[in-house]
């Protein structure tokens, strides 16, 4: 028995040392969790970033979320309701089969057929009423109404080989169906632990630097930093702001940052006459909901010292926000400025609105969702308390925060919004458009804010195919919403990646961590 065991031991050791990491290998410490290898199963950021290694898309987004050709060489709107995509020739899947229009058709068919998807990719394809294959490398997508966002939406999902149109999620997880056109082939997916990838030599794009890539899930932030410091991984994402200062000083570590597409904002119940968590200071109900008064909302916005939050709570890893997206993104307004901190003015405005003595409110916040979420909430509460709005903070796990917020149980909430499309129509439509189930407007409008002017400008923008005209309309809609304090924007997060010396990462606004973007640093 013991001899046998020892024999096995020696064998294993030799096997391990034979397989040790070479120079061209990379290990990534990922902050998020990956739920499946099926690219059409769960529309969630971590899954999408991992499947971008394996699968191509019709349209790609670069590090700043500008659209780039990928499997589609070019695209144009040939009339108001038809988009034409010219497909790239000579692209091969990992199994050697050719990519052409039938693979796109198969993908479009498969997406709605993944039945138990908890978050379907149908949101990117639902607008398509008809798919016309013009030739093997030209495809036309028709919609019922003008749809300017078509190219952006085509960047939302992965293209699979038509051979696997009916493959199950299990087939993708086992690797059998995980055959794409991406830069990497799936070697192994160990659920809840890691994903192993190997370079695909037939890749049509730029050859990535790393031959073998392991993506390890290290969801605990402190453990992730420790893994980087000890050299177990070469790059980590979602670097905790508390550790950045130290990491930046460390000569063995490099940090790369970029402002993200995610705004952290406060949402208020502006709809109900009696809001559950707004009372007089003695706990008695108020005659009316003060949050319905734009002067109160404005006063709250003025009372918040955004630079202080950015400096002290976010440790400079954020930028004070004036609107829904940083000014460099499509459709943002050039006229909106960050609300100036003015406690005195806020107090006056509050008195003018009839709340000289203030009122009491509870700010609900998740405590495991956004960087420093519960700390931001406390800082906001400090500042509001100083102008007489007695603010309590209840910070709870997202697992119960989100469902309760959706049931409209809260009055005053802290949220974050990242624009996957990289343009301002996404937050406008989801957060401030009047809640309308049929039109799909305002699904995340949990304060039930409603402003006909915003609705109208947005609706026109969403029908306008001309980019310049659309950008102008979206900017006007943003201005209308912000002037009315539909929400209180606090700051835009800065995305950080930390790498070991000798590695560098091109930071991405969309928070994705891609092995293709990791380079061997020139020293």
């Amino acid at each position, binding site marked *: 028995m013991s001899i046998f065991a020892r024999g096995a031991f020696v064998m294993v050791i030799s096997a391990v040392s034979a397989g040790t990491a070479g120079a061209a290998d990379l290990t990534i410490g990922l902050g998020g969790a990956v739920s499946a290898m099926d690219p059409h199963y769960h529309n969630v950021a971590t899954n999408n970033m991992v499947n971008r290694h394996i699968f191509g898309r019709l349209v790609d987004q670069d590090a700043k979320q500008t659209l780039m050709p990928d499997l589609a060489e070019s695209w144009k709107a040939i009339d108001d309701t038809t988009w034409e995509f010219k497909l790239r020739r000579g692209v091969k899947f990992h199994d050697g089969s050719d990519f052409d229009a039938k693979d796109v058709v198969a993908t479009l068919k498969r997406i709605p057929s993944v039945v138990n998807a908890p978050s379907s990719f149908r949101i990117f394809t639902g607008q398509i009423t008809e798919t016309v294959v013009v030739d093997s490398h030209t495809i036309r997508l028709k919609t019922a109404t003008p749809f300017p966002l078509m190219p952006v939406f085509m960047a939302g999902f992965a293209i699979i080989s038509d051979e696997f149109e009916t493959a199950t999620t299990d087939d993708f997880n086992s690797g059998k169906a995980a055959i794409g056109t991406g830069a990497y082939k799936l070697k192994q997916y160990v659920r809840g632990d890691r994903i192993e990838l190997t370079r695909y030599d037939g890749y049509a794009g730029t050859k990535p630097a790393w031959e073998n890539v392991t993506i390890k899930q290290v969801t605990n*932030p*402190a453990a992730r*930093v*420790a893994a980087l*410091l000890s050299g177990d991984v070469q790059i980590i994402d979602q670097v*905790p702001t*508390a*550790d950045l*200062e*130290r990491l930046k000083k460390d000569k063995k570590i490099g940090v790369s940052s970029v402002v993200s597409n995610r705004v952290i904002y406060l949402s208020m119940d502006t709809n109900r006459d009696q809001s559950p968590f707004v009372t007089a200071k003695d706990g008695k109900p108020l005659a009316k909901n003060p949050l319905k008064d734009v002067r109160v909302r404005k006063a709250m916005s003025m009372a918040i010292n955004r630079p*202080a*939050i950015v400096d*002290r*709570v976010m440790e400079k890893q954020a930028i004070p926000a004036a609107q829904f997206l940083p000014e460099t993104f499509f459709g943002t307004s050039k006229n909106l400025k960050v609300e100036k901190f003015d406690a005195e003015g806020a107090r006056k405005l509050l008195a003018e609105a009839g709340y000289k003595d203030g009122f009491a409110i509870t700010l609900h916040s998740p*405590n*495991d969702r956004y960087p420093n979420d*519960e*700390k931001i*909430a*406390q*800082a906001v*509460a*400090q500042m509001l*308390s*100083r102008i007489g709005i007695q*603010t*309590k*903070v*209840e*910070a*709870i*796990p997202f*697992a*119960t925060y989100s469902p*309760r917020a959706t049931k409209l149980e809260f009055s005053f909430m802290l949220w974050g919004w990242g624009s996957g499309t990289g343009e301002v129509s996404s937050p406008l439509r989801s957060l401030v458009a009047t809640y309308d189930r049929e039109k799909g407007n305002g699904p995340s409008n949990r304060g039930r804010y409603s402003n006909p002017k915003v609705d109208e400008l947005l609706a026109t923008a969403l029908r306008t195919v001309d980019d310049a005209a659309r950008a102008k309309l979206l900017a006007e809609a943003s201005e209308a919403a912000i002037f009315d304090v539909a929400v209180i924007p606090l700051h835009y997060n800065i995305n950080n990646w930390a790498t070991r010396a000798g590695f560098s990462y091109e930071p991405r606004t969309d928070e994705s961590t891609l092995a293709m973007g990791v380079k061997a640093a020139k020293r």
Partner: protein
Amino acid sequence: MTVTTPDRVPAVEAEAAAPAVVSPLRRFWIDFRDSKVAVAGLAGCILIVALALLAPFISPQNPYDLAQLDIMDGRLEPGAAGMDGTIFWLGTDDQGRDMLSGILYGIRISLAVGVASGVLAMAFGASMGLLAAYFGGRVDTLIMRVVDLQLSFPAILLALILVAVLGQGIDKIIIALVAVQWAYYARTIRGTALVERRKEYIEAARCLALGDARVVFRHLLPNCLPPLIVVGTVQVAHAIALEATLSFLGIGLPITEPSLGLLIANGFEYMLSGKYWISFFPGVALLLTIVSINLVGDQLRDVLNPRLQK
């Protein structure tokens, strides 16, 4: 997570143990002060309780009043001066909360949570365990299967359900901790009581046709008490640590009213960046509290254990 009685010992009747001349209480104290360390532990306990009770009067700041905090004073080193010139002797946390005040108030909350949940869990758990052992049969079956159920139910899920249904608060955390801990007491005391109830004095009490309640609480319970007290002291300490863990997982106390555990959990993320004081000082306070309680508990066990009587 479990603490089980280290020694299941049948206690002799209290009168039999005590020499005739000295009252049991005095005799107990003589035995107790035998160990200098235990006396020091007792002094520590008294000091900590005093600090907890006096916290509102001796703290430089009310750390629970957000209007008194300023994030511009955040993460100051020990001994640094704030914007208005106040000196923060133990530094500040990320919200500009004075750590000294935070710790004093934190001891209050931690002790309240630990003691309240410990006492309630012990009272409920011990009653259940006694009933199960004494009556046997269906009562025993029912109680012990509920214990099985409880022991395999994760504290985290229970706490999350309570937060979702009842909201956040100290009382909710106490409920959660009682729900988690009572089963340990029940199982511990049932084991002891099963042995005890076969003994002659219980048979005798029954023969005298004493009521069930009287037999259980006047005769059976006192004889099961020594191990229970020991488990109790350890368990109070454990409840404080468990509360810290729940807070670390984000389902503990309200973030604006931190206990020692929550202070440690909050400071935890600054450990790697060298801002040690945010979690170090509350850690020391927690440690001293728990060590004091345990020193007393250890000595209690030795004193109350008749087999170790000299």
